[in-house]
């Protein structure tokens, strides 16, 4: 295994070189290319100082040299083993531990390393929240669809998931911002960024005015949630649907009231009816897990609203809630596409295994369907999901470019867009290098996970 790991890690190096070479060639072959003149262009300078600045850039980045030399120079800078670079731009002695230097950004004038250290954790945070969420929801939908093959849920979810997969994430992001974050409609969520500035000085958890308020809030949330979950699990279908319709209609009415301020109008009826139908449909689902999750979410929101009406005062929202509040929309916009894809994959992979001989054998010897599904079939169906996890990370990285631009989150995706727009060579190369590295690392992790889960696979 160790052998294999070392070999794979070494194989990453030529691929990474290839990646940076492709991007470097693109930039070098572009009409005009990148020269000191193009960097200085647009600045209003005296001729002498312009020449001095050009000389400075030439010395710093080697822009007056031929393109292959520039590439080798960049390679020498980023590799930890190589020639040391003297302050005047010439090569020094050969050293084994000179440390990697990603260079200085043209536009920001700061070391690229610092910029990446600032931006990368934010993108990783978005992706690391999305991945488990995607897997959890996708698997539960896929299992449910496969279980009722050809049934109503299966057909409906199949069309719905294909539709969801086709929604461009910029459309979703724009609609989210437009309807749920702008002043004109419902201002439930912040329009952008990852935090409100004032929460930096606040406590981590929400701070209540006094202890009794906290008690009331907790009591409200707990009672409403417990009541709703209880109803969702044990009430008969008709009652659940009626209850769901009432809750949805109430929500729709409140939304319309928020918007117009009138007591009754066409919009009120429309929103109340459509939301009511939606929730009654969801409440009528056969799978108790979905109903519990739905009831829990509604209960949480309802309880908080109720405690608000009962006069609970919150002194400070706190850092945690603020962060979560900012993350809701970006995370949804980032994860729904992968979720749809993965749910479809789960379904087809499960169906394939449910028809397999070993599943029939298990049923024939009297194992009940639940055990067949979870202990026999599911474990085998998980293998393609692991393979896909390798391609999930690159697609999420690409998705975060769009999502970060829409929600103005200062992550690596936004940095990439800014870097290519300003032709910031060092930044473009470094961002490509890092994202390529992350992608290859994802492939490696997936392969290792594959070997751990499937005893038939071994890399020795």
């Amino acid at each position: 295994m160790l052998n294999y790991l070392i070999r794979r890690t070494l194989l990453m190096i030529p691929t990474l070189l290839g990646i940076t070479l492709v991007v470097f060639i693109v930039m070098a072959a572009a009409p005009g290319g990148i020269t000191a003149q193009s960097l200085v262009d647009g600045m209003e300078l005296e001729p002498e100082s312009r020449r001095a600045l050009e000389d400075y850039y030439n010395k710093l980045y080697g822009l007056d040299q031929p393109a292959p030399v520039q590439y080798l120079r960049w390679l020498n800078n980023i590799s930890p083993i190589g020639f040391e670079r003297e302050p005047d731009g010439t090569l020094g002695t050969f050293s084994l531990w000179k440390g990697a230097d990603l260079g200085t950004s043209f536009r920001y004038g700061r070391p690229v390393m610092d910029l990446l250290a600032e931006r990368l954790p934010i993108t990783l945070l978005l992706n690391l929240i999305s991945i488990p969420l995607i897997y959890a929801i996708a698997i539960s939908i896929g299992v449910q669809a496969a279980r009722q093959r050809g049934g109503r849920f299966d057909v409906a979810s199949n069309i719905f998931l294909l539709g969801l997969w086709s929604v461009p994430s910029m459309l979703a992001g724009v609609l989210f911002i437009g309807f749920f974050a702008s002043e004109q409609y419902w201002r439930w969520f912040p329009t952008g960024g990852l935090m409100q500035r004032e929460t930096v000085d606040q406590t981590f958890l929400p701070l209540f005015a006094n202890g009794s308020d906290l008690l009331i809030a907790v009591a409200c949330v707990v009672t409403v949630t417990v009541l709703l979950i209880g109803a969702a699990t044990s009430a008969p279908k008709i009652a659940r649907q009626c209850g769901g319709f009432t809750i949805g209609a109430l929500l729709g009415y409140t939304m319309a009231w928020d918007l117009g301020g009138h007591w009754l109008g066409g919009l009120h009826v429309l929103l109340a009816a459509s939301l009511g139908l939606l929730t009654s449909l969801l409440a009528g689902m056969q799978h108790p897990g979905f109903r519990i999750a739905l009831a829990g979410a509604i209960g949480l929101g309802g309880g908080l609203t109720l405690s608000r009406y009962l006069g609970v005062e919150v002194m400070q929202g706190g850092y945690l809630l603020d962060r979560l509040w900012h993350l809701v929309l970006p995370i949804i916009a980032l994860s729904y596409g992968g979720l749809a894809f993965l749910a479809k994959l789960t379904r087809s992979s499960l169906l394939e295994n449910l028809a397999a001989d070993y599943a029939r054998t298990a049923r024939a010897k009297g194992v009940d369907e639940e055990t067949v599904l979870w202990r026999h079939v599911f474990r085998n169906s998980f293998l393609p999901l692991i393979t896909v996890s390798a391609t999930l990370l690159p697609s999420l990285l690409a998705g975060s470019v769009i999502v970060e631009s829409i929600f103005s989150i200062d992550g690596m995706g936004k940095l990439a867009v800014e870097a290519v727009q300003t032709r910031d060579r060092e930044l473009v190369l470094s961002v490509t290098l890092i994202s390529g590295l992350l992608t290859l690392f994802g492939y490696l992790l997936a392969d290792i996970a594959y070997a751990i889960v499937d005893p038939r696979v071994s890399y020795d």
Partner: protein
Amino acid sequence: MTELSADTDMKQPSQPWTTQVAVSLLGRTSARIGLSWIGLLVIIATFSPFLASSHPLYLVVDGQASSPLLQHMTALDWVWLTGLPMILVIALLPLPLWKKFLSAMVGLGLTAMIAYTVVSPPALVIYEQYRELESTGKVETIILAPIPYSAKDYLRDYADTGIESPLLTSEQRTHWMGTDENGADVASRMIHASRIALGIGFIATGIALVIGTIIGGLMGYFSGIVDIIGMRLVEIFEAIPTLFLLLSFVAFFGRSIYMMMVIIGITAWSGYARYVRAEFLKLRQQDFVQAAVACGLPLRSILFRHMLPNGLAPLLVATSFGVASAILAEATLSFLGLGLIDDPSWGQLLNQAVQSSTFNWWLAVFPGGAIFLTVFSYNLLGESLRDAVDPHTNRSKRA
């Protein structure tokens, strides 16, 4: 008699594989929905100058009749208008598939050459002149297009143009889908943008398909060292997030529509190469390929006449999904502000929905809905195609 009829029943001539797939495909509701939306889009794209244009179809001024619309038709308009019937006719001719494809390509090329040499519309376009003529009362008869605004008609003769919501306009103008931030009619821009979406989808995927098939075919046929080097290349292109590569290509190479097609094609070939390689690895040991090799046929004949038709099924499915992702790629680039500058594009319209401090819902819902419907249609088509070419689903259906 009964014997004979039973006999003929049994000996019913088996249909070619392409016909079987086509019949099975057309029997599926989802494929029909997808195909009809794409068909509608093709019609809209072809006749877009007649659907939305500031130039009147027919105009009589001072007793002189003219058709400014026909005078202002560009070469590209003529290529679309003649190309569509030509392709339809060629598709109905009883020819083998590759000959149909070849003749369509040659026909399109010829039409483009003729159109670009013969047609020369006036370089300076003044959209306002017709409205001025009309307001001064010089016009005797005028027939306008259903949407009387061109995509690049920014309505400069009205002083108050800017972002306007649908149908909420002065009595002189009606904009069914509102206007964008430059004052151009959104419905008109969307109609003209459908060409870009369709063109990008087909041509970019075509380029990716050609590159992927050649590289993947060589990898699968030769295997060994060619395969190892080719796989590294595929891995490189897969490990760079495509969007980053697209962004850098577009940012450094300028923004013409043809450049974008080429760029999206270049970045999307790796998936096709994988599919073709896997098929060819399976096929290369089979008898008919060995026979072709033994006959001393040239390499291109072995690869493309003998092996490729047998490995076409997974490629077809991947192509349909590929068109969807190419359209999405163009929309994303335009959305991020790296698309075409003045030409209409759905992604660019979508971008304007939140650019200003207010949210303009019509700039999100209509162009976004068009992108969604098109991508959804291609995905529906790909999904039904996958079921249609998959022998497993047909068997289970019959059983």
